């Protein structure tokens, strides 16, 4: 039997969000499916951290204005956390 995808799995932008938070906001790369915990407190906090840093409304959700900024060209240096 094919595996049924969970509700929300195909929500656009989730992969981008995961990469963005990992690359620029120090979200742990623990190999787990990000989508399953997108509403979890740590992820919401990370989204809010990103929104605050980028001067966006801190909704904690992947709204259109957040998505717009994430799609814009940017510097590859992380915005927060340690730099190696």
């Amino acid at each position, binding site marked *: 039997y094919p595996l049924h995808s969970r509700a929300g799995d195909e929500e656009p932008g989730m992969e981008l969000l995961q990469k963005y938070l990992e690359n620029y906001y120090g979200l742990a790369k623990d190999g787990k499916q990000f989508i399953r915990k997108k509403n979890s407190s740590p992820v919401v906090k990370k989204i809010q951290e990103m929104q605050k840093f980028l001067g966006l409304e801190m909704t904690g959700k992947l709204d259109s204005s957040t998505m717009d900024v994430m799609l814009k060209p940017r*510097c590859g240096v992380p915005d927060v956390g340690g730099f190696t």
Partner: protein
Amino acid sequence: TFPGSPKWRKNHLTYRIVDYTPDLPKESVDSVIEKALKVWEEVTPLTFSRLSEGEADIMISFAVGEHGDFVPFDGPGTVLAHAYAPGLGINGDAHFDDDEQWTEDRTGTNLFLVAAHELGHSLGLFHSANTEALMYPVYKSSTDLTRFRLSQDDVEGIQSLYGPPPASPDVPVVPTTSSSPEPESLMCSPALSFDAVTTLRGEFLFFKNRHFWRKSLRSPEPSLYLISSFWPSLPSSMDAAYEVTNRDTVFIFKGNQFWAVRGHEEQAGYPKSIHTLGLPETVGKIDAAVSDKVKKKTYFFVEDKYWRFDEKKQSMEPGFPRKIAEDFPGVDSKVDAAFAAFGFFYFFSGSSQLEFDPNAKKVTHVLKSNTWFNC
């Protein structure tokens, strides 16, 4: 700054452009990088010289995909470049993604804006959350290149690492607040002169080059700010400024153009030509302006003459220009700046200030320009 605040332990740094993008002529890349370094050179004691071979402090390269630092580029878009904090080896280096279309204008990705940002990292600045800052991480294609300047946040960041540049006594090149000793000494220099002075909602603003001192009667100490930190579109080294209180608007003049601001807001539809006010085409700039809120007249001073503008009729009055010295006896020198307060006009010329009583038509006090700073 980066964690641990890494910085260069010397003020003279070397850079080398290791390879070039095919998008631009080599000379253009050379000149853009030089210009980007100058942005930081102007606000710090740092100086730069270019090496053509060997290891430089800042190695600049264009590359695509994986390029030897385990942080691969991602093709066109998104990541434009990255750079490393000060230090040995790869540290201090700046890498540009050559899958971008690098340009000198805004048709592609503007190399100057990105290079100035990346070199900020090379000198020790981390990203800023201030959306006006050059060190904000997201590329702003709308930046007006002709009026580019660092934000107060950028300047304070880099000066926290390296301090201000060596300053001449009359030029406040240190944009920080009055809590720092450096502008204290500049603002109390006996040689201090101003480009323009105006009131703004009950405060006094004294403009000089890229900065202004903001003096409120409520607080004894003036504060120093970058003009761009309040009004990003306004020019530096302005010629004149005045407030029309019943319109809650300050007008700013430079050359044959003028701008309008209300508090922090820059007004749409500006800059306009000064000739739209009724000044003749032969006037290329004004030296100073002051508005009398009681009589609702604004005076424009140009060399030894002045024009008078009727704020009610919004037109220049007939019978002008007239000689300044005839109607303002005692005001004999060219006027640099002027403002009105407490029923007096205050005229600034070099380091001198004249308090003029418009009813008695005479100079009532001769002062130093910086008497408002309680030096």
